[in-house]
């Protein structure tokens, strides 16, 4: 079983600050880490490897410093790491990013057949959830998103449970296929001692757009279909009443009275 996990280096979510005047992200000093949703994707890949044998390859697209997220992936149990790095990729939207990743996966697949690609549900910096389904679209592989459980993975197919608003649905897919997972699916393990040591030594394969045979007219800020025209900090203003009372009990009772007064109950 050859599993490819897609990961992204993103700012640690609690450290993102926005300039209130310009609306620009203040990236200086903001620590980067693996997109938290990708931790679940990688963990699921490692679990599958443990159950069925095989290996986990991990792929990312990003600037040179994104190498750190690949090393972190090895610490968490990945075996091989691939980095797509090229100025041509810079500023890509999800359509272009998924195209590049799909081309990268295609190349990995040509060297050693890929069975499953696993993505996190979304990233914490752009929150789209597009990448998994879009990679599958480029590769013309079946996919399932919002997967909360892999029910079973056999030699020939994988059966998954995906989350819907009203319950869940069971799907079965042959290999190769793409799944995007929600955090219900597992509890990521702690990086092992062995993994941490391996992470320092792993050779990372670095590919440019040409290496993966990508069509550059589909890549980068100039060619991708969508662009950001404006960004701003959302404003929130509310009329707020502090409920008075000496003890917490008094305030609780007062709250009920206030809600009744205002026809909220």
């Amino acid at each position: 079983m050859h599993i490819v996990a897609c990961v992204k280096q993103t700012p640690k979510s609690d450290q993102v600050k926005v300039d209130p005047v310009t609306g620009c992200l203040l990236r200086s000093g903001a620590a980067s880490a693996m997109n938290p949703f990708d931790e679940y994707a990688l963990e699921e890949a490692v679990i599958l490897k443990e159950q069925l044998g095989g290996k986990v390859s991990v792929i990312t697209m990003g600037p040179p410093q994104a190498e750190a997220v690949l090393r972190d992936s090895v610490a968490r149990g990945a075996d091989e790491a691939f980095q797509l790095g090229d100025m041509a990729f810079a500023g890509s939207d999800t359509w272009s990013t998924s195209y590049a990743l799909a081309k990268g996966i295609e190349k990995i697949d040509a060297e050693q057949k890929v069975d499953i690609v696993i993505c996190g549900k979304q990233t914490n910096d752009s929150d789209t959830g597009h990448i998994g389904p879009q990679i599958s679209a480029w590769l013309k592989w079946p996919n399932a998103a919002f997967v909360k459980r892999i029910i079973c993975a056999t030699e020939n197919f994988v059966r998954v449970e995906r989350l819907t608003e009203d319950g869940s649905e069971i799907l079965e897919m042959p290999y190769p296929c793409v799944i995007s997972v929600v955090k219900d699916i597992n509890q990521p393990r702690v990086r092992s001692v062995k993994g941490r040591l391996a992470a320092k030594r792993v050779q990372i394969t670095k590919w440019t757009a040409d290496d993966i045979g990508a069509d550059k007219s589909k890549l980068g800020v100039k060619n991708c279909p969508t662009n950001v025209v404006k960004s701003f900090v959302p404003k929130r203003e509310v009329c707020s009443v502090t409920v008075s009372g000496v003890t917490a009990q008094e305030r609780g009772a007062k709250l009920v009275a206030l809600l009744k007064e205002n026809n909220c109950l």
Partner: protein
Amino acid sequence: MDYAINELEQEVLNTSRELVQKKIKPLRAEMDAKEQFSTQMLEEYRKSGMFGLWLAEEYGGLGGGITCLAMAFEELSRGCAGLALTPGTSALGAIPMYLAATKEQRARWCPDLASGKKLWAFALTEPEAGSDATALKTTAIKDGDYYVVNGTKHFISTGKEADFYTVAVNTNPSRGARGISLLVIEKGTPGFSFGKKEEKMGIRSNPTYELIFENVRVPKENLLGSEGRGLLYVQETLDYSRPGVAAQAVGIAQGALDVTIPYLRTRKQFGQPIITFQALGHKVAELAAKTEAGRALVYNLTHRMDEEFLPAVKEAVANGTVIHEELKKRKGMRWTKYSAEAKLFCSNVAMEVADECVTLCGGVAYMRDFPLEKYMRDAKITQIYEGTVHIQKNEIITALIKEYASKEGEE
């Protein structure tokens, strides 16, 4: 201060710390209250490689030594001394095996030990033989290719959860202390059962059981080393494991400080954070200094031990010899006194620090919602197991008398 001198030791510290933050802290209060062994933590320890730190790479270990073991135990105990015992006691149970085993025995037991698939435990104490190990009543009488074991062990840590028990037995009761041998007895062997589960003051997530042996037939291949040398292996084991308990004590002390200092910084009385009251600040400074002294004591010792232990293991694995014999060849130091000193000092520091921290934080620390009273309960065990503080003093003074006796007439 971190005492790691190489990459492996540093990663052992990092891994243990991540385990505490992500896995142990959310679990410790619940497991303590329920007095329940955590199979979830067992799984986490397996995945992160905590069982094989000190074992040779040939067996799936990481090739570390006594230092790695102590560092892991310190950092895990800083989160929860009870949950830390899962890998801790497995190492304790397996050290005598590792030291005395033939290469065949090592090949048989070490891979599952290193992966954590099988847990080990150490069974020495009996109702009438604690500090005095020579009073052991459990017998193992040879019967063809088997030993027939009868007797009772009690206060056995990780009891019932462990798969293999290194049991001190008397194979020749007429010879007293010189009749003591070590047998590896597997859970599930007919006649081997578990008695009472103890209800304890601290380290409550680690189950303490009574082991009962009734005509248990143990194959002679499970004898460690040779008959009658059990106490020697036990002493050697304690020399290596007591620094571990000392490290655990340092971890408990540090963990108590980790809770206390932030609280004292934020708690305000008389209009100021109470840590700025000099009486309290100075107390904290003293406790921190003692904790750091304990840590220095532990790792200076274990690093010296590893200088001998690691090459001995390498040699034994390469040549198929017994580790104990390789250690003997090196004619190194007897560690007994130093191990005892480390354990004596650090366990007293742990108890003092935990106790004082509860006092410093006041009423809130007496409540179970606040994660401090548990440190005080847990600290106590470090003064007791693997030899009480008084036994450590016996070890120290015995060694000192011998040392000075041999110096007589030198001047």
